[in-house]
């Protein structure tokens, strides 16, 4: 274990890897600071670039974007009451009132410091919990994996708020798209429309670029979102004092714990975690009335929690191969391209690489904190860039990046089609997360279901006789039925 850690650390400390990490953090900060641009979009559009470099360099850039974007999303939330990323929505509630009280600098400082705290706590969880979880998951057979993938998709739809059925349908659409290509068991060609380019299935990255890059641009164009005007001159002091730290730390640590656990649940990312943490901090606070009016406790809980989702999501993704959120879904695609299959076998066959990921995340968190503290003013100015420039750049880089993967024109059309589908689904208020999860988990689910049926000679009884499979199936039913019941109870 010690030698594996040192090997992972050594790989991380290569100057070229650190340079990619720094570039990723800087890019992530820009993507996060601009409302409408998200970590998901940044990682999706820039994933093709990571294929031309080593796995360590590529992952350094992508993890840098992931870690850099989330805290930067708090900057517009604090300065102009517009969340830069969905995860920073709760930062608006106390950050913006603080800015209005003339304490914008302090709010930005708390955002940078507590975001780093949240990330570091969750990475600690990843480092401690991942190996035991992966070791347990090594016992999984086909029936358990089938149950797990089914649970992952149902859970993602279950947390889609009141849109449970559309969420499940999006998951089914993702599963249907995963059918394209050769049958995973018999290599029989299916749904490839006679095109040899589709025999390997639909290219994942162009579809991600279309779903999260192109469709987002189209939605923003349709809503005529205007560029923002912000005055970043009078921010005031940035660092909290000793007395303020006593207020910040307890709620920040509690928020980090909540965020880590929420992030580990497939689909429940920083947006949900930050709201839960803010609400919990308010419930247990003596000064409840301060919340929503510039409470440092509220801001620290939400910032720490939204960022702690990173470690939770990475734990689920690395140990089980199930993405914890949309970014980790794209990261799976990036890892697969480098010949690395996330899941328990990664911990058996590529242990140093797992430690490289942990070290990269730690360095990315520290760099992000530095960028957040030093670069608050320049990042605030980024908000002035006209949206039409950004849209144009994203469409261009998304297009060329999609082509660059395989030098295949068919990938360009996959991106285009995914962009149109994503736009239509967003307009219909259908969550895209389950679609991505279905696309990723489809081959795994199908192959394991069919293997399990072969082992049980075509008898579905395996779903009831295997305890872990049964647990996942009961959890699947609960994750779908409970939100529907809650909705029915809430409706008049």
């Amino acid at each position, binding site marked *: 274990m010690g030698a594996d850690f040192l090997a992972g650390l050594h790989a991380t400390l290569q100057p070229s890897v650190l340079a990619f990490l720094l570039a990723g953090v800087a890019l992530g900060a820009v993507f996060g600071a601009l409302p409408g641009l998200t970590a998901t979009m940044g990682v999706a559009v820039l994933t093709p*670039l990571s294929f031309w470099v080593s796995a360590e360099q590529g992952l350094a850039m992508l993890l840098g974007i992931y870690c850099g974007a989330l805290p930067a999303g708090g900057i517009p939330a604090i300065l102009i009451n517009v969340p830069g990323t969905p995860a920073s929505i709760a930062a608006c509630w106390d950050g913006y009132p603080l800015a209005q009280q003339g304490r914008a600098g302090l709010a930005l400082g708390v955002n940078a410091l507590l975001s780093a705290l949240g990330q570091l706590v969750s990475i600690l969880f990843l480092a401690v919990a991942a190996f035991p979880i992966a070791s347990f998951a090594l016992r999984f057979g086909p029936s358990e994996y089938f149950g797990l993938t089914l649970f992952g998709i149902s859970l993602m739809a279950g947390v889609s708020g009141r849109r449970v059925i*559309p969420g499940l349908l999006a998951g*089914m659409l993702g599963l249907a798209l995963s059918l394209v290509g050769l049958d995973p068991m018999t290599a029989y060609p299916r*749904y490839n429309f006679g095109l040899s380019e589709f025999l390997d299935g639909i290219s994942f990255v162009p579809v991600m670029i279309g779903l999260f890059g192109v469709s987002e641009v189209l939605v923003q164009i349709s*809503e005529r979102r205007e560029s923002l005007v912000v005055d970043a001159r009078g921010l005031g002091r940035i660092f909290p004092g000793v007395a303020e730290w006593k207020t910040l730390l307890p709620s920040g640590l509690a928020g980090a714990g909540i965020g880590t656990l929420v992030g580990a649940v497939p689909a429940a990312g920083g947006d949900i975690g930050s709201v839960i943490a803010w609400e919990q901090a308010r419930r247990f606070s003596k000064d409840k009335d301060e919340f929503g009016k510039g409470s440092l406790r509220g801001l620290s809980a939400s910032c720490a929690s939204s960022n702690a989702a990173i470690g939770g999501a990475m734990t689920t993704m690395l140990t089980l191969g199930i993405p914890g959120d949309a970014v980790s879904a794209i990261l799976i695609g990036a890892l697969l391209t480098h010949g690395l299959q996330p899941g328990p076998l990664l911990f058996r066959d590529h242990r140093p690489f797992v430690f490289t990921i942990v070290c990269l995340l730690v360095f990315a968190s520290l760099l992000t904190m530095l960028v957040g503290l030093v670069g608050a003013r320049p990042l605030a100015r980024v908000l002035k860039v006209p949206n*039409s420039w950004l849209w144009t750049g994203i469409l261009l880089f998304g297009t060329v990046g999609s082509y660059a993967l395989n030098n295949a024109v068919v990938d360009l059309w996959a991106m*285009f089609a995914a962009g149109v589908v994503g736009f239509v689904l967003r307009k219909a208020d259908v969550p895209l997360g389950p679609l991505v999860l279905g696309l990723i988990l489809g081959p795994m689910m199908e192959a394991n279901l069919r293997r399990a049926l072969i082992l049980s000679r075509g008898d579905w009884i395996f779903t009831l006789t295997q305890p872990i499979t049964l647990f996942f199936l009961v959890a699947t039913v609960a994750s779908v039925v409970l939100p529907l019941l809650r909705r029915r109870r809430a409706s008049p």
Partner: protein
Amino acid sequence: MSRRELVLGASFLALGMGLVASSYALPSGLGRLPGPGFFPRVIGGVMVLLSLGLLGQARRATEPLRQGAGDLRTVLLVLGLLALYLLGWGIGPFAVRTALFLLLLLRLLGQPWRTGVTLSLSLTAVVILAFRIGLRVPLE
């Protein structure tokens, strides 16, 4: 009644039924052991059931779920321009058609000519530097 949910449910219902129908053209497997047509049939079947559930919800929905499509004309024009750019992929020099695509896109999005020309040339240069020269992607 929610028209949006009706359209959504009907679309998924058609897709699910199509999946089930098309799955019968694939080998079903030997005996009780599932073949390539098995999983599409399962997905299609579940999709049909969920669509029917959504259609049922749409009939009962009383709240105005529908939201405006927004500036659909500009979206369609942008999509049309992007489709033209993709259709012309490989025809003529990459730099020329990319700069032209970007210029038209920026104009469509309301940027003045001068900004459009400057930005389209700059972005084209960045892409060529990054992808063709840096990563050696054959952008022709």
